[in-house]
């Protein structure tokens, strides 16, 4: 059986990629995908621990996360579509109307 450390490392790598994507990329869709990556990195860590501790609550929790992520994606994509309609761009750096 693959030791749990591997899962955790993979999860950390995925999470780091997600973070880097959010911070570096300007395309809203890419950022969005990076966020999904981070979510799923977390999911991976949770199910890994779930199997290690032989507990189903982790798996149940992951289902919740997936469901919420789906809802979040729906809302996020709708927002991106609306922004695109007005700005004809999905570059997040141009979405700075709330600048102080």
């Amino acid at each position, binding site marked *: 059986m693959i030791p749990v450390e591997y899962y955790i490392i993979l999860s950390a790598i995925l999470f780091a990629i997600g*973070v880097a994507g*959010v*911070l*570096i990329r*300007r395309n809203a869709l890419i*950022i969005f995908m990076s966020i999904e990556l981070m979510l799923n990195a977390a999911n991976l860590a949770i199910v890994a621990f779930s199997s290690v501790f032989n507990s189903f609550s982790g798996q149940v929790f992951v289902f919740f996360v997936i469901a919420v992520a789906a809802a979040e994606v729906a809302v996020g994509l709708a927002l991106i579509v609306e922004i695109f309609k007005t700005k004809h761009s999905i570059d*997040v*750096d141009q*979405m*700075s*109307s*709330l*600048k*102080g």
Partner: protein
Amino acid sequence: MQLSETVHTGFFFLAPWLVFAPVIGLLINIIFGGRFSEKAIGTVASLASGASFVVSVLLAWSLAAGHGAAVTVPFLEWIHIGSLELDWAFRVDSLSTTMMLVVSGVGTLIHIYAIGYMHEDVRFKQDPGRFRRFFVFLNLFIAMMMILVSGDSYLMLFVGWEGVGLCSFLLIGFWYEMDTLGRPSWANSNAAVKAFVTNRVGDFGFLLAAFTMFWAFGSFQFDEVFEAAHAVAPGVIVAITLFMLIGVAGKSAQIPLYVWLPDAMAGPTPVSALIHAATMVTAGVYLVTRSAELYMLVPQAQYIVAMTGAITALFAATIAVGQYDIKKVLAYSTISQLGFMVAAVGMGAFVAGMFHLVTHAFFKALLFLSAGSVILGLERGHHHAERAHGHGDEHGKGKKGKHALSKAAGKKSESHDEHEVFDPGDMRNMGGLRKTMPITFWLYMIGTLALAGIVPFAGFWSKDEILLDAKLHYPTVYVLLSIAAFFTAFYMGRQIWMVFFGEPRHEAAAHAEESKPIITVPLMVLAALSLLGGALNLPFEGFHQLGHWLEYTLKEVEALPLNLQVAGISTLLALFAIFLSWLIYGRNPLRAGQPDPLKKPLGFIFTGMENKWFVDEGYFAVIINPFKKLSQFLADVIDWRFWHDWFHETVIAGTYNWLSNTALNVYADQKGIDAFANWLGTATQSLSGALRKVQNGFVRSYALSVLLGVVLILGYLIVK
């Protein structure tokens, strides 16, 4: 008990109507008088006063039927505080009914006379609208006088006492915007103020007496006070009686407060007769008589009262000799006669004092009213002469400028041999009125003989009774009063010769006209009373009616028989004085412009008499001017400069201004609270200005912040 019995058996229940009859009269005249004719106004007022007289008669009758037992008629609850009960109750006894009869009787006659007198007076003064006001005041006076004499406590007496003082003030200043000659001036109103202020001094004495009384006895009620008086130290009674004497001196015009009475002659003549001769001024005599039981306890106080009266009697009589105004002579005579009464009651001769009060009311009212008739006669004569000359001028015969003489008061006449304004009260303008005004002459003669004390006129009997009492108890008083009586006969003789005999010294006197019956008829009644009034208390066995009547109220009354020595001396003195006055004024009648024949032989003494011994000037120098200066000092320096300018403006207002402007406004408010609030604002602004830079609007930088935050928290958790 006795009270309920007598109330049912007599007319005592009518007692409140003594006061309310005149009050109703004056209310009718106030409310409806505007639509009434003068006759109707006069009739209402006279009837109101007459109703009071009828009530007085009924009360006296009931009292006589009840053998003189004093009755108290409760009327109104006034002040009830704890155990203190001050009620308005009427006391009907022989003393108060005597006063009631005099006040309402003489008062009614004077009301009737006033209808005629004021009818002409308001026309001479050119303001007929005041006719009604006069009768309202007159009725108010009767009501107040009735409260005074009928009250059963010193408090009610004081209410009336103040009320008559007010009426006196109102009526002296009746023609308030002119002087006695009708010229625009404040002379009359000054006279009214003088009377009021002088009376206030006296009233203060009365108040002190009342306070002392209340402090010592806890009551104002006559009976309770008299009962309690025996139990306290004589010093308290001395204080009460002497304080009371100050009140008496004010109201009854005794030394040193008599100075208001001569000036009070500024009022219309019926007022002089009613208030300032017959009734109000005798209130002091009534007060002493009422307080007889107090005075009897302290002979020292009695002596002071008697001496005050006697000195006043003599002093005023000497002044009367040097006066030229017909009413001023009578005014000083009144002061002198009041001195007789006060001396009498001071000596304990209460009956004699009351007797003289009654007869004096008759003959002095007669004299004043006759003097009023003389004045009116002269005014008529003056108008007549004026018209005649106005007519003559058109024919080029009359003296130049004569008719302008008194047409406009105060306007200077062109002719210099005439007075600027004709004074109808000046005896030097009179003379020879015996022929033009015969009825008035005879009435005046009767009054004069009564006042001079000639047998058998009323004044003889009453004055002799006083003299007799004085001779028995106080020889000094007897001497003083005898001399005063001599002067009395002399100045009255002088007046008669000057006014009615000789040749007219002024055209007005030559053309004087007799007054109408409405004026002369009341005078005839008064003349009859002056003639027969002595019958009230003849000093013979079986008579002494007034004495027996008053005995019901006053404890000890000694009925003295006629003393031929006293009577003889006083009659001889009076006759000699009249003879002397004839020698001086009658044999060689005064001519126009001639100075008084006494002036030369008496020199400065006559100047003193003429100028009232400079008492007014003395009062001005000693009291009034320093008082004015003091009040000016207080007003100007203390009140204005110190309190207003310095203390109020500088200290209080200055401090307040400094506090509000500088301390609170500038320092506390502007530099304190405002500055803090402003600093808060600017601080917030600059802080937010700094913080807004963080909000750059780039999503990724926010994300970076979140990441750093997470890393920090996690780092902290790990390190911990």
